[in-house]
């Protein structure tokens, strides 16, 4: 049986499942946020571990391979605990720790199996990744993280056009007045006057001029790439994920030059990642500048626009 960790509306997971079924394998899909109970765990003369998910018992022995698409392994108590008593408040964190130990045992044992994706690395530290990329020989944008206006002004002297972006993931905040989404933005110099001497630590990078963007889906040493001509459309020229009105950005299969491909492979190996989506910029000068890695990024468009059959590729690896 192939186990898939995902979330309810991920279409790529559904497509991979269709290929798993086509290849004659059974599957179990665990969607994040849905309840997983511990069934039992036996250590001694024999070893047994099983979970109950969606009324079904999943024995770790029967899992031949798993795909960590996204979401998380979260074991909860099957019994409703009394809430809001002062005792429960005091003991709750300890109960959480109890469950964490069970989750960790599951996770470590799953890690011994054939898999794609890394459960422990649903998100990466952007700064550490940039550092590793540089060490692997990839060009990176000149970058500072600062909350000091004088440091920002100093950086601006050398790099008059900047972008700022979140250090962590793109937050999606739902408020009464609407949705707040913080994408990568060109830094508006008029904002400087409104900044005090200090401000919240923020990531700034030199604006890299684009000829086109490159989105790579990396899977076990192979790079499947698209070139995205986002600069043909003003709205998407900084962050191609912002949906343009009307015509979509041109997005076509791309063959990474061999020297760059080898650096990307080295980076993923260094970071111990077997899959992920990687963003590069191709500059008018012919350079390839590394931006970031999303370990659980969408690859459906990369697959479709390149006709790479990635869903099949993933299923075949899991079922082989």
């Amino acid at each position: 049986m192939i186990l898939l960790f995902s979330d309810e509306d991920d279409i790529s997971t559904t497509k991979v499942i269709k290929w798993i079924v086509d290849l004659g394998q059974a599957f179990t899909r665990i969607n994040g946020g849905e309840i997983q109970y511990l069934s039992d765990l036996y250590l001694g003369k024999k070893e047994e571990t099983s979970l109950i998910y969606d009324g079904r018992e999943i024995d770790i022995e029967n899992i031949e391979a798993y795909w960590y698409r996204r979401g998380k392994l979260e074991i909860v108590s099957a019994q409703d605990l009394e809430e809001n008593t002062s005792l429960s408040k005091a003991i709750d964190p300890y109960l959480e720790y109890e469950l964490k130990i069970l989750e960790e045992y599951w996770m470590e044992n799953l890690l011994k199996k054939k898999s794609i994706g890394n459960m422990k690395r649903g998100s990466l530290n952007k700064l550490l990744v940039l550092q590793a990329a540089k060490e692997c020989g990839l060009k990176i944008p000149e970058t500072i993280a600062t909350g000091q206006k004088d440091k920002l002004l100093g950086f601006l002297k050398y790099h008059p056009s900047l972008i700022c972006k979140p250090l962590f993931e793109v937050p999606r905040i739902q408020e009464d007045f609407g949705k707040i989404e913080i994408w990568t933005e060109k830094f508006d110099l008029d904002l400087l006057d409104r900044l005090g001497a200090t401000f919240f630590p923020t990531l700034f990078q030199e604006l890299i001029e684009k000829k086109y963007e490159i989105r790579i889906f990396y899977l076990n040493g192979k790079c499947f790439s698209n070139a995205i001509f986002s600069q043909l459309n003003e709205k998407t020229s900084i962050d191609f994920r912002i949906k343009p009105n009307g015509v979509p950005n041109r997005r076509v299969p791309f063959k990474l030059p061999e020297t760059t491909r080898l650096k990307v492979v080295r980076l993923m190996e260094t970071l111990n990642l077997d899959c992920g989506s990687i963003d590069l910029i191709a500059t008018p000068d012919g350079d390839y500048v590394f931006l970031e890695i999303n370990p659980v990024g969408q690859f459906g468009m990369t697959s479709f626009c390149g006709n790479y059959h990635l869903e099949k590729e993933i299923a075949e690896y899991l079922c082989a």
Partner: protein
Amino acid sequence: MLSATTHFRLFANCVLVKGARRSTIVDLQRREINFIPDTLYDLLTIHERSNIGTIKQSYLPEEGAIIESYFEFLLAKQYLFLCTAEELDLFPPLDLSFQAPGLIENAIIDVDAKSNHDFAVIFRQLEALGTMALHLRFFAVCGQNDLRKILDLLNESSIEDVEILLAYHAEIQEADFIGLAKKYPRISSITIHHAPEIPPFSIASPSFSLQWTSSPIDDHTYCGQIGPRSFAIHQNVFLESQAHNTCLNRKISIDKNGAIKNCPSMSTDYGNIKNTSLHTALQAQGFKKHWNIAKDQIAVCKDCEFRHVCTDCRAYLEEPENSYSKPLKCGYDPYTNKWEEWSGNPLKEKAISSYGLEEILQTS
């Protein structure tokens, strides 16, 4: 003026298709089709790797302005981009291989007043074959409750898309259709036949469409019409069309009498659903005989600039005995680039009568 040393590349999802008298650029990403003269087709293919200077040298000096205007058009439409010689190999053409999971992609089930299908059994068998899309065609009036009972069977199904053809009746209410679309998100479209000339209401929704036709559709013989309205400018169709039939590949059907066929309009059946499983029928000798008849192998179609966006028909043919002849219900001539009413063509009279289509032609 373009620089003489500049190279170019077509975006891989803008694919050239050469016809007998003109060519098309099929824009698979934006789902549009545009005509280009064959001279431009030749320029773009023969000079695929040349720079602008070389291209201009190989034409007459006075043609330079035309070449410039061609490139202006192609750049404005974002069909191509300019690049360096080194970049040419970084932009491979689109891989045209077609791959899909499962044995069956889509199914048609026909229903008339006398049909007695066990939908629960049929749906289970379709799911086991990997079916993604279903077309339910009701020729007689089907009440809302009966329809809902059928659709309820699909609530947990792996069938993702349902299209429905329904007969008009006077009590048809807008609210019923809004309710259907809401309760059954798998329904992508409903078409109502025998409808009054002026539709009583319309529903606009991005995930659901309601269409009306005044055509009296009493059985499967209405199907197989080919024309711009049936063109599917879609990457999957384009890819599938390279080596497979765009209508019949990975299709299974149950006609109004329960006969299992590739398509309800075909004469050969492979058993009845009452006593034969879909899986058994699918394995029968001959069931898949039309699946790999691609447009490139069909007479006339192989010279047509629309051949990779066209949903073919192998049930109604100009020469009923020749599986490789042009679809009967296509009025396009790629040698003159003219459309005409297919049913008025005297050369098609014999085929029309051999399929018994005179009646449907008189009433429509």
